[in-house]
């Protein structure tokens, strides 16, 4: 298995912005204040013309993200994936993740490495 073939899938439709991925990553990589391996970006809340709301969180791995390579080698999931409270993150080979997309709208796959 090469970590280069693996990516992160995030179904941002259900990301609640709970910060668990951010904190898990900070702790695993011992990142100091102000540094992040993943950031949860936010769009909205904004009222749309039809009266419904746009309110989306979008987790973005930073250049510090190493896909938790050391964990993965041991047989652990990346810690953000492991702890994500809404269970919207997946880790795996691209082809597999890509198959998930067809029935999972509002989902991205990040190629990190």
């Amino acid at each position: 298995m090469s970590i280069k073939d693996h990516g992160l899938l995030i179904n941002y439709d259900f990301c609640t912005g709970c910060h668990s991925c951010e904190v898990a990553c900070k702790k695993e990589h011992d990142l100091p204040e102000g540094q992040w391996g993943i950031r949860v970006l936010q769009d909205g809340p904004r009222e749309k013309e039809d009266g419904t709301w746009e309110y989306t969180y979008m987790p973005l791995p930073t250049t510090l993200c190493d896909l938790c390579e050391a964990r993965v080698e041991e047989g652990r999931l990346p810690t953000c994936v492991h702890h994500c409270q809404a269970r919207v993150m997946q880790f795996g080979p691209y082809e597999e993740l890509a198959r998930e997309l067809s029935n999972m709208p509002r989902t991205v796959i990040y190629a990190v490495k």
Partner: protein
Amino acid sequence: MAFERNPDLYRKDWRWQEGDLTVTRTCHWSAPGCHDSCGVLLYTDKDDKLVKIEGDPNQTYNNGTLCMRCLNMLEAVDHPDRLKYPMKRAGERGEDKWERISWEEALDIIEENVRRIQKEYGPESIVGMMGTGRNCNWAVPLITYAGFGSPNFALGFLSGDSCMLPRAAIGAAVMGDLPIIDAAQFWPERYDHEGWKRPDYVFIVGNNPLKSNGDGFLGHWIVEMMKMGTKLIVSDPQLTWLAAKAEIWLQGRPGTDGALALAMIHVIIEEDLYDHQFVDEWCYGFDKLAECVKEWTPERAEEITWIPADKIRRAARLFASGNPSSLQWGVAVDMNVGGIPQAHAWIAMNAICGNIEKPGGNLIARDAYGMVLSYPYGYDKYVSPEMQALRIGLDFSPLHRFAAGAATAHGDSILQCIETGKPYPIKMIWFQSTNPIANMAGEAPRVYDAINKMDFVVVVDVFKTPTAVAFADLVLPAAMSCERNSIRGWWTPTRAITKVSSYYEAKSDEEIVVAVCSRLNPENFKPRTDLELLEEAVENGIDNPPFTYAELTKMVDSWPERPYGMHELGLLRSDGQPGFNTPTGKIELYSIVLEALGDPPLPYYEEPRESPQSTPELAEEYPLVLTTGHRSYEFFHSEHRQQPTMREFHPWPLVEMHPDTARKYGVADGDWVWIENTRGRCRQVVHETPTMDPRVINAEHGWWFPEQGAEEPSLFGVFDSNINNLTNQCVTGATGYGAPYKSQLCKIYKCTDENSDVMPSKQVTELGGFKYDRIQYSDDAVHDNTNEEVLGGRKYVY
């Protein structure tokens, strides 16, 4: 191939070795606290030091996930400010001068004071207090009952007992139990449980479950159900993320959900959307309920709630159309004077729609194996009937007598008892895991004055809190969750909490119970170690738990059988007959119990005592509706403020308001602003957001600043941003339950050098507090302008 975890790293054993590290599979509760107990893997090194925490993927309660508070556990456990040793006060109260002492010496001081007060005033003059429900739910009651021999255990002066207890009390009265939403959390296989189905609609009222995780319910389970197709209806004065995802968001005026409930029932009955079969078989008093909601048209409710009538109609129709729907309610239901009748209305709405005890509906929640490790624990065993009769607040809140889970003394009445010395004096308070001048008590400056009157104050906590500095004669260091052997009995499953590390001389709540009770009551109180106490607790389980505590540790958790339709199977009543545990055996839309207690037997709406509608003149000076008490992911009430990671995410107390509101009052995002009403003021940082109604602002609670000075007047700045400078005590519902934390009036103005000369901390600790008349329960106060007809002539008197 899909990525598979290495099963050797995630075993189902309770403990194993991984290289130099020992892994213990257990559950977390508190401290630091929350209402849940997620499965965790605790990694300790050869010196028994906690070095890492992960969520346990084999614990299906949380499926390996953790929130940021558990993920940041090491920052809590290793924090340099933690209390390490018992200390006695060496200077005046508030001077922050301490002398380290031994536990033996601390117990000597406790014994001397308790014996003296018992002798001079009686055991009832000693009060034991904890904060919101955490892992001292049974420890503090037990110390109060078995150690002090007092019936007066209370929740940190919480006004109107308004956190879950109103819902628990009315639930006990009208259906014998408390219903909670079925997210398949009663079975280890969770969503695969045979028969479980996801609800069509979840109606969320009075909480943001993702952040609050109230009532032993992990909020993110709702997201799991949304992924399966569950739709939401959300009533919230603010657009939460869940509200943005909802089919309908009902943006009401804080404190008016009771009117919304009556109007929704009106629609459901008028349009014949209710479940006739369930109503005929299992509800009592339907005709009377129908009669009482007749006038509650959505148009009438719109005037009160500000929610458009057509939205109320649509919400009612959608909710009634679900098969099933379920109700996710929260603390905001409790936190208004009409908390009890509002909760009654929601139960009635849910019942007539037939959602009770159905898969995916609302299920009756009981502690697994009848292990009720909470407020009543030890009450009947250690407190004599004569002493029980002296429990404070019983005489004017008989509902407190009725509900077993509500075995609390009444916080407002204790406060008034301290202030007036009637019906008897209070001389000592034992605070364990509560910080009432930061939050939980309303009217913090008033509570500050009251506590200062005590002869003797003990504070047991993990950090030196403002409460400890201001009042404690003795401070005792408590252990955190990973440092204690304990048990989670609240709902399901029963979970073991296993000690993996130690911290200086900190003792677990269980060890403190044993130390104090075996010193003060050695004849009757038998356990001599924490493990003996825990074995006894398991033995006390009414439904014969099939394990000992030692076995549970190795099982990690245990899930009792739990069929659907418990009322049909005769599993709810002590006589073994089918039905609910009420006088009629049915869910009482018209309550026989309330009627007998002299309380209104049907749901009704009570307007907040202070609002643009009930006090329009006051609203001229204080035009904004103030709500408070909402949660954030970073903090649990007043906890976690000393953790740098939490403050990185959330550095300051935020008051949320619509951009139009900010503009109107000349403030902008990031400005410090004074929030003021007749009782006092505090300052917070403006956060502009279009999610608020421009007439409402939403301020945070629980703030203190551990980085600031301890000694008075500072007290870690606890009064400076304290929204409880503006809330009330002794303004509660007809039953004594429910207080208006969620609905006050206020004004705001920008902080300047000139108007910030005297900070609230100085005002409270040195200048005698803010000047206003503090409301007392009496014949002529509180009720003279409100709703005499619905109060059934009840008077607040001692």
